[in-house]
């Protein structure tokens, strides 16, 4: 049928898919690379997650799948993949297969075969590559989708197209990147230490803004309206309260908190008395 109309080169329509990756996925991929078997050049595995309403693929979980690779063929442990998926599914049924990952830079030879396999597991899987070898000197993480390039009804090649990847890792931001960045952290920060570091950062930021505003006023730096608006928004976000009203609010809250501390101290005293009573019974 296609031949009658003459051969047509069909290019895939560009889609607006994008992907978002959480830190736990990057951590897991790095860990499995470090633990890869002898002689294995790369590790591959399954990506789990969900597709958000706007079409973004949100990668939230991953597991490595054992495989063997020679120049002309790839053997994937499909049974392992299915077992692992079943296990993950028991814990969180909302996480489904969304694609697969591989270490290394960019798409490599055997990838089309593996991608074919995942295309049968899920419609339009994404392919995530994590350059654990730092081949280009930087931490390159890329996401691709694949589409078939065909001439008439003849399949010519598979094309991997890079898609935008969101690496902000919002969920890890809650933990604080400080403990994730260094190779060793001696102690987890407690309430007040955390507060202190946040305050210090705020201080630094305020100083920076002061300096910028001064520089602009003195004419040392070219003014940028955008930054100016941000600053004015930030200043405007401070509620304008009369000093009296603020003092009342402030003092009330301080009193509340002092009352809390007081009550908790009383409770502690209560506990020590109970303990003393316990030992006193021994003497009697």
């Amino acid at each position, binding site marked *: 049928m296609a031949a009658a109309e003459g051969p047509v080169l069909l290019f895939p329509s560009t889609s607006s898919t994008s992907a978002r990756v959480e830190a736990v996925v990057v951590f*897991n991929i790095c860990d499995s690379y470090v633990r890869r078997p002898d002689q294995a050049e790369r590790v591959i595995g399954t990506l789990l997650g969900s597709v958000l309403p706007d079409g973004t693929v949100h990668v939230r979980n991953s597991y490595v799948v054992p495989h063997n690779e020679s120049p002309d063929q790839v053997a994937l442990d499909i049974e392992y993949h299915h077992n692992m998926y079943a296990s993950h599914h*028991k814990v969180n049924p909302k996480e489904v297969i969304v694609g697969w990952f591989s270490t290394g830079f960019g798409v490599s030879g055997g990838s089309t075969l593996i991608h074919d396999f995942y295309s049968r597991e899920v419609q339009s899987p994404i392919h995530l590559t994590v350059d654990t070898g730092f081949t280009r000197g930087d931490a390159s993480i890329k996401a691709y989708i694949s589409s078939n390039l065909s001439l008439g009804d003849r399949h010519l090649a598979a094309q991997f197209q890079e898609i935008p990847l969101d690496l902000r890792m919002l969920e890890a931001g809650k933990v604080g990147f400080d403990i994730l960045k260094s190779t060793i952290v001696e102690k987890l920060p407690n309430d007040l230490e955390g507060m202190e570091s946040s305050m210090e950062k705020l201080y630094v*930021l305020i100083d920076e803004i002061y300096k910028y505003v001064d520089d602009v006023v003195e004419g040392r730096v070219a003014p940028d309206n955008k930054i100016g608006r941000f600053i004015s928004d930030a200043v405007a976000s401070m509620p304008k309260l009369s000093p009296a009203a603020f003092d009342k609010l402030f003092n009330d809250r301080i009193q509340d908190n002092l009352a809390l501390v007081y009550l908790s101290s009383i409770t502690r005293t209560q506990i020590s008395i109970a303990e003393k009573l316990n030992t006193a019974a021994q003497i009697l």
Partner: protein
Amino acid sequence: MANPAAAAGPSGGARSFLQAVSTVTEEAPSPLRVVQMEGLAVLKIIKHCEEFAPALVTGQLLGLDVGSVLEVTNCFPFPMREDDEEADADGANYQLEMMRCLREVNVDNNTVGWYQSCLLGSFQTVELIETFMNYQENIRRCVCIVYDPSRSNQGVLALKALKLTDSFMDLYRNNGLTGEKLREKKLSWVDIFEEIPIKVSNSALVSAFMMELEPESPVSQCDFDRLKLQENMARKAAGEEPLPEEDPSNPIFKPIPEPSRLEGYLVTNQISSYCNHINGVAGQNFNRLYLMKALQED
């Protein structure tokens, strides 16, 4: 609500493996000083606990026992528990299957304890102690990692590593929890749990990646949470009451049936941890308030 501690108990199927493990760690015990967790394990625990909060969940910790350091290099979550025997058998199968699969990809295949989520620091329960005794029978060195998702909204990484003290375990095993015996051994409520400091380690590879990938912004979500700036400011500006700092539904006020000595001790422990918690929160509040004051004066 799911019963977290009981779900974590090693079930019949897993025991044979755990026993095999215990024979390896039979040498002279040196006291446990530090729990060293990989960033991967920390993230996995947080992911699991946060996703299911406020439901309580548990999972298993995998790692290595190296002298006085217990390394937690990986972990896996347990499915939510259903209350029938079939589900129990299922859970045991799941656990074995998961261990087998992880071993195949060279993950440390050594159980070193379990993790569980808790609400507002209320983890001191009889179930936790029973689970601990169960684990301890098979693994000499084991810890329980407790994570409190309710506190992460305040920008606090509420991870705790716990174990039972040896003297308490002795008494518990010999049913010695009567007032007299407790006094004899001078065991008070502070001597039940022992908190072990947590260290976090990351492989050089992960550390390199995070260095490169860390977002440009010098402030993280964590900082916003701690300072609680945005939301309360907006509310104050709108003339509304600021958000309450604490969840008002406090689980401690449930009725306690027949208080035994142990329960009393546990409740004391709980109250004491609430007190610590309150002091921490109040401390943070003072900081926030003075910060607001300074801003207002400028």
